[in-house]
């Protein structure tokens, strides 16, 4: 297809033309310039709305958060900003609670992401078979994802409740005694991971399913002709073909677990929820940020936490890349 840009030659004045003609051609070059400007500029105008919105609601808050992180600002006096330089970062980096939150976020992230993605792979594999009412099963798998965090967390809070909770009730009947789930260091993390796994497994399963359906059927055919079992097919055909998709879900899950907020906040709710339990046993970085900014009212350190979270994500991404490169080179 030809471009719509008119070539300059098309409007070149005829040689030795009359003065009248040359004046007309002068106007034409001006017009053609305008046309060309229009052609070059208007695509930017079309995409401008996104960038305007992104600038207002994405970039500006990001930079302003950075600006706040360098100041002393209180919730009680937003107008009084006092230059603090590196102090806020220094404060959170020397706060034991910050490192507790980092550890918790990391642990809960691993405890929820790994089983979640494994189960999702298995589920997707099953859904990929010829099934009766496959659409029904696929919809069911996605249902938890469609529920809101708040309602899911509240229902699970009832399940994990120390007093009269569903799980303890079952354990009691099994003769295993009961556990104060939210109170323990590991049990609380397990409880939160369960909520996350429940909510996101179906979502990931559907992504995997979509990728699986793009795997050419002849690969499986050839494999089965070679006598590969279902399991071998899954390992040698499905997984390698899904590698980019798996990487994608890992990235998404990592970002998701870094932002984990609603589930821990609502596990116990109230005062304990906001600080991640009375020994901060399940306080995530987002909760730490929230508590610093909204409960204690110190916005400077809270903003510093936000930037620290961004830095952590970048570090994780870099490590991820390094590992990916290592795996690729060693696999060859």
């Amino acid at each position, binding site marked *: 297809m030809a471009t719509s840009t008119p070539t300059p030659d098309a409007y070149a004045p005829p040689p030795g033309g009359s003065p009248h003609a040359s004046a007309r051609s002068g106007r034409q070059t001006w017009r053609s310039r305008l046309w060309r400007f229009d052609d070059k500029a208007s695509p930017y105008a*079309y995409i*401008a709305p996104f960038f305007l919105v992104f600038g207002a609601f994405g970039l500006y808050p990001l930079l302003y958060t950075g600006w706040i992180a360098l100041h002393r600002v209180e919730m009680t006096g*937003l107008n009084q900003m006092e230059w603090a330089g590196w102090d806020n970062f220094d404060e959170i980096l020397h706060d*034991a609670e910050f490192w507790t939150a980092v550890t918790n976020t990391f642990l809960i992230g691993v405890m929820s992401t790994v089983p979640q993605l494994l189960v999702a792979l298995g589920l997707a594999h099953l859904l990929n078979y010829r099934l009766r009412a496959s659409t029904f099963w696929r919809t069911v798998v996605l249902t938890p994802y469609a529920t809101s965090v708040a309602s899911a967390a509240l229902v699970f809070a009832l399940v994990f409740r120390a007093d009269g909770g569903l799980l303890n009730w079952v354990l009691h009947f099994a003769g295993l005694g009961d556990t104060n789930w939210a109170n323990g260091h590991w049990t609380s993390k397990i409880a939160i991971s369960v909520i996350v796994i429940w909510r996101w497994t179906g979502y990931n399963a559907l992504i995997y399913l979509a990728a699986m359906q793009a795997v050419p059927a002849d690969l499986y055919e050839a494999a089965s002709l070679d006598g590969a079992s279902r399991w071998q097919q899954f390992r040698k055909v499905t997984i390698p073909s899904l590698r980019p998709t798996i990487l994608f879900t890992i990235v998404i899950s990592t970002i998701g677990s870094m932002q984990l907020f609603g589930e821990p906040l609502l596990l116990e709710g*109230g005062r304990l929820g906001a600080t991640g339990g*009375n020994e901060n046993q399940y306080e995530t970085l987002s909760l730490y940020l929230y508590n610093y900014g909204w*409960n204690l009212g*110190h916005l400077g350190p809270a903003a510093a936490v936000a930037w620290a979270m961004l830095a952590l994500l970048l570090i994780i991404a870099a490590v991820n890349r390094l590992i990916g490169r290592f795996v690729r080179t060693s696999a060859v």
Partner: protein
Amino acid sequence: MRITRTVAGRSRRAAVLATTGLTVPALLLTGCSSDSDSSGSTGPDANGNITLTVADFGQFGYKEAGLFAKYHELHPNITIKEDVTADEKIYYPKLLQQLNSGSGLADVQGIEVGRIKEIADTKADSFVDLGKVIDVDDWVSWKAKQATAPSGAVIGAGTDIGPMSLCYNTELFKKAGLPTDRAEVAKKVEGGWEDYIKLGEEYKKKAPAGTYFMDSASAMFNAVVSSNAEQYYDESGKPIYKESPSVQQGWDLAAEVASKKLSQGLAQFDTNTWVPALRKGTIATVACPAWMAGQISANAGEGNKGKWDITTAPGATAANWGGSFLTVPKSGKNVEEAGKLVKWLTAPEQQAAVFKAIGVFPSNKGAYELPDVKNAKLPYFNDAPIGQIYADEAKSIPEAVLGPKDGVIKDTISTQITNMEQRGTSPDKAWKAATDAIDKAIG
């Protein structure tokens, strides 16, 4: 294909460009300026009818006492809409945000006593000086001082106060072989909080299985600290909680309770643990500011009616724990009417009605002589003569020095007391954790 362009085509493009250029900022603007907050104040409508909005938290008791409906009867052109947030810890940060942005504020906003100092110190300019609307000398002497800004403006009208008493479960006392009569129980603990712990040990010896002498040692800690003028801050506004004798005494007693395992170690008001414990009746005593009686009867439920009783606090402690204020933000559209409403709500008759309805005790001295207060008995608590118990005490409550972060300090220490009770954290370690967290909060 070569696209041939006509003048019409170009003008269409220009039109598209122009509309996108115009609508995007327009959308952004409307997105920011439209006030979707329902609690925001609005002016009178065409007929001069006014809707006053009141934002508060927990249980202020106005609805229960039917006061908003009554006000509408007295002033037919005024309708009152209440916006209640259950948890004060969610309410307060929201209030601060609204104060910062200057929008979404109701005509009348409630503020808890643990926060009033911070608001009076930093945000007094945003509130109407109620000292000009209401005669503050009607209140117990220290109530007005708590809400007075450095400029001298009284920004909050006192609603209730929390004189201290002791609530106890007579059924459990009987089973443990302890006296159940009000006067006898009072005599057992007349020596003070040490006596209270001794009574707890006595209770523990014959206690029914699965029951505890008290719900939480932090409640006792609060009661002890509240009975002193000097608590977490000194007169000059310097935080002194590390050296404060009252904090020290309360902490040591709490550590003793934890080591002797006299309490169930519950976080008070926690719906997962504290509320079921009250319902099941596993707690024998609760340190009981006036408003706590309402909490007990509401949470323990009808099934436990008549099992509870109220007596004077150990050592006849005169203490105030809690109590709130009503404020009028200047940003409201009906500031004058809101001031009148606050004046009416905090007048003796109305405070007495609230006391009768839910048991929160008046801060207005004029209410103490009213029969609704003076002769008040709580049927749920075996007809305990609460009017008499609290009114006697209200006169001798010390004038407490408040600080901006009282609420946060109290909560942080409570958390660490719970850790001592529940996890067996050593007092030294718990104290260090508490002071670290408080230093961060005071910042």
